[in-house]
């Protein structure tokens, strides 16, 4: 029989006192006090992968930075050109720096200078004007050719990227950062040996704002490029630097070239997998030199096709596992939301990629043969590569980049694009930085990226997200607890912050519970009420198919999917059947991943300021698992965009395209752009104008969150999250 709790004053006082003493006298249990250990933070926007004329971009360093942090308002920015060499001097700014106010309908001019209606042509200011960043190093350095170090015989002589970074680009970056009062620093899009590209950062030595005083340097970033970029074939050891690329973890490495003091080979028929091995050595080097201030994030990793041991193609899941096993605090994610979102094949992903009329079948299939809602198949397919990695409990996070090079047929100040979007214009990384009342720092941003407390959005579909999983309190009725947690999520979204509450975990974290406990997942997003950066106000052609009239520059969040999967622990590299495999294989799949819940206007609470709040309860949790989110402006079953379950369809199949293997290579698209305001640059086939390039990207918007892990005490331990 139950003992009744009476209101006897003695009983109350005694109960209260016992409770009080027992709690106060106890040793602190740190796990329960997790909230207090987390300094207050805010989500800030940035991008870590974009190009200047120091590789194959079209803008100066200064103009690229200006577009990023001024025009498009990013809070932080990392400039990252390819490794290798370049003849062009990206430290020279365009003249004039801002030729015209960005607007629709500006015309290109092939020569300049430019009248009121003109802008720079494709590729930027012509070198023939003897101004701007397309001029060569050789013609603009006071020392001319002699000032360009290392190997090389071309005219004009090309400068190795290590010299560009160390002696020229870093200074511009630091000056811009300190003048603009924002963390801006330099990275490298590594041409990774054995693979395609990897976004890398070695922050050590750099001193962007808010640092002041003595200038910093990017010597370690430059050395990393010399040592580990497959396109850097210089053997000078960085001239007077006399670098040695050996790593302590691989003593007496016989693969190192005696002259260059680096591994000079790559994947080839004679040396299969050597390139991948060299890339792994690079990660070991990062571990030794900058274990807490570096990152290694494979970029557009499906684009170049599956991994090939005898050439430099893409990444299979085993390579991602290799990277993460070696250095989980450096190799902790991927850019499965690639740049080039306005290109003729979105993200530059395609089947038979690289084929031409001369060699109509010589191309390589991107993995997935296209992007899916602008995202590579590794992250876009539920139960695919990303879910397989999360299903191991790995620290493996989702990022986006703009990968800006140029705007295709348009100049840098025009608003249309047939190739890339400027950083901050279309897709952004939102990362939580714990800075308290201090300034935002580059170190804090890298810590935030590493934490997994971040998310990605296209076209400002949402601009706030709070996502939390909490152990349901058995002392509170369910509706009461739900109200508390939803309010916490709502407050956090309004304040652009996270939920900090004991017994709750947010993105990149794990909630540790006993078996059988319920978990409440709460989500708050803000669908911004203004316009995004799209220059088009005509109705979204994809939505028009289903009789929804919605301006392209004012998208509305249609729904959010909560995706979940079980965690079964790390796969051993010796278990090759489970460790290594192509997209779609057992090794690259998580069969437990599925959409667990769909939220839309019917079951979320909408506030006037655009905040949408929702939650659901996972009852009696028995196994370790994770939950993550995606959302879009497109309802399920939008023709050619989403399937009946709301999954994104292949963008390549929607767009008009050029297939050199066909008798009539020009193939029509699927979604007509029939509004009178559809711009003239849309691809037209058979007299019909199709949604393509930037319009098709603005029409199809998504956001992706990183996961929240839930660890059950008698189930699998989740190693990748705290």
């Amino acid at each position, binding site marked *: 029989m*139950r*003992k*009744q*709790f*009476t*209101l*006897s*004053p003695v009983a*109350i006082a005694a*109960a*209260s006192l016992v*409770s*009080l003493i*027992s*709690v*106060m006298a*106890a*040793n*602190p*249990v*740190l*796990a*329960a006090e*997790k*909230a*207090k250990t987390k300094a*207050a933070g805010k989500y800030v926007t940035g991008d870590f992968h974009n190009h200047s004329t120091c590789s194959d971009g079209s803008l100066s360093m200064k103009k690229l930075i200006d577009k990023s942090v001024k025009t498009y308002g990013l809070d932080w920015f990392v400039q990252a050109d390819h490794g290798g060499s370049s003849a062009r001097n990206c430290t020279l700014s365009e003249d004039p720096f801002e030729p015209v106010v960005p607007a629709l309908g500006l015309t290109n001019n092939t020569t300049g200078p430019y009248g009121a209606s003109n802008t720079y042509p494709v590729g930027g200011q012509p070198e023939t004007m003897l101004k701007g960043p397309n001029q060569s190093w050789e013609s603009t350095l006071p020392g001319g050719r002699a000032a360009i170090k290392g190997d090389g015989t071309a005219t004009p002589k090309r400068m190795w990227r290590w010299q560009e970074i160390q002696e020229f680009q870093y200074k511009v970056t630091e000056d811009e950062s300190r003048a603009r009062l924002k963390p801006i620093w330099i990275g490298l899009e590594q041409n990774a040996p054995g693979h395609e590209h990897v976004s890398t950062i070695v922050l050590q030595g750099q001193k962007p704002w808010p640092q002041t005083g003595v200038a910093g340097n990017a010597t370690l970033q430059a050395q990393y490029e010399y040592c580990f970029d497959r396109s850097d074939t210089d053997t000078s050891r960085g001239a007077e630097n006399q670098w040695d690329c050996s790593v302590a973890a691989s003593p007496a490495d016989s693969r190192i070239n005696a002259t260059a003091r680096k591994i000079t080979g790559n994947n080839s028929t004679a040396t299969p997998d050597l390139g991948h091995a060299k890339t792994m050595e690079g990660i070991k080097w990062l571990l030794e030199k900058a274990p807490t201030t570096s990152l290694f994030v494979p970029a557009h990793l499906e684009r170049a096709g599956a991994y090939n041991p005898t050439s430099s193609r893409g990444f299979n899941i085993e390579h991602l596992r290799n990277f993460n096993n070696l250095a989980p605090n450096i190799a902790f994610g991927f850019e499965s939301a690639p740049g080039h979102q306005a290109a003729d094949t979105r993200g530059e992903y395609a089947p038979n990629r690289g084929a031409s009329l001369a060699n109509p079948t010589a191309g390589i299939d991107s993995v997935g043969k296209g992007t899916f809602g602008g995202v590579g198949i590794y992250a876009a397919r539920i139960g695919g590569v990303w879910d397989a990695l999360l299903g191991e409990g790995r620290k493996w996070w989702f990022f986006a980049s703009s990968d800006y090079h140029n705007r295709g047929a348009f100049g840098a100040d025009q608003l249309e694009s047939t190739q890339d979007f400027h950083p901050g214009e279309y897709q952004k990384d939102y990362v939580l930085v714990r800075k308290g009342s201090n300034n935002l720092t580059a170190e804090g941003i890298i810590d935030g990226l590493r934490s997994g407390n971040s998310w990605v959005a296209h076209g400002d579909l949402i601009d706030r997200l709070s996502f939390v999983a909490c*152990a*349901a*309190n*058995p*002392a*509170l*009725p*369910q*509706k*009461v607890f739900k*109200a*508390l947690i939803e*309010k*916490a999520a709502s*407050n*956090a979204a309004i*304040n652009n912050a996270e*939920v*900090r*509450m*004991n*017994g*709750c975990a947010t993105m990149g974290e*794990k909630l*540790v*519970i*006993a078996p*059988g*406990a*319920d978990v409440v997942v709460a989500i708050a997003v803000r669908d911004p009420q203004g316009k995004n950066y799209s220059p088009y106000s005509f109705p979204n052609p994809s939505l028009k198919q289903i009789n929804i009239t919605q301006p392209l520059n004012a998208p509305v969040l249609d729904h959010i999917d909560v995706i979940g999967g079980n965690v079964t622990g790390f796969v051993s590299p010796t278990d090759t059947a489970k460790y290594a495999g192509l997209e779609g294989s057992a090794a690259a799949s998580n069969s437990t991943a599925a959409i667990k819940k769909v939220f839309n206007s019917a079951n979320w609470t909408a506030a006037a300021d655009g905040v949408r709040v929702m939650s659901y*309860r996972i009852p009696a949790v028995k196994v370790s698992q994770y939950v993550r989110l995606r959302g879009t402006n497109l309802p399920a079953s939008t023709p050619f965009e989403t399937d009946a379950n709301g999954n994104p369809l292949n963008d390549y199949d929607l767009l008009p395209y050029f297939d050199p293997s066909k008798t009539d290579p020009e193939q029509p698209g699927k979604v007509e752009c029939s509004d009178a305001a559809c711009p003239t640059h849309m691809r037209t086939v058979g007299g019909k104008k199709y949604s393509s390039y930037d319009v098709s990207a603005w029409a199809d918007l998504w956001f992706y969150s990183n996961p929240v892990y839930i660890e059950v*005490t008698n189930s699998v331990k989740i190693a990748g999250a*705290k």
Partner: protein
Amino acid sequence: MNFKRFTLPAIVLSSLTALVACGGSSTSLTPETAAIAMTSKLSSTLAALNLGTGLNSGLLLELLDSNYLDGGANQASSRAVVDATTAAISTTPDLSFFPSAEVTNARVTDCDSNNICNMTATLTNQDTEDTVSVEFTTKVKIMGSAVYLYGDQVATAPI
């Protein structure tokens, strides 16, 4: 010290208030005294469940009515969750406990013939400076000199 800063004054104040209200005898609760009693009991239970050292499923015997039913959860299943968490403490240093909150401004109204009433109160979490506060309404049952949470009496879990 990891004790919530609100718990000490809340418990002491509510204890003293109860002492004055009841005059030292075990009489039947009025709605007013029931609100005071539930404020104290719920706040202290929530505080205890938020700390490994305070976990004790027996607390739920004092808080939840024997016929408590809420979205499929009853007194036994709720206690089982606490027991499982208690059992995991010694082996799981990073165990998460249950989010806590202070109860204030409680009012008990609309009691029916079975002494089942509505309680409206404010729930406030102050784990950090990001204070979270919501008003809620739930069912309580007054039994003589005690008051218990009664739940929504729904036998199925919400979808």
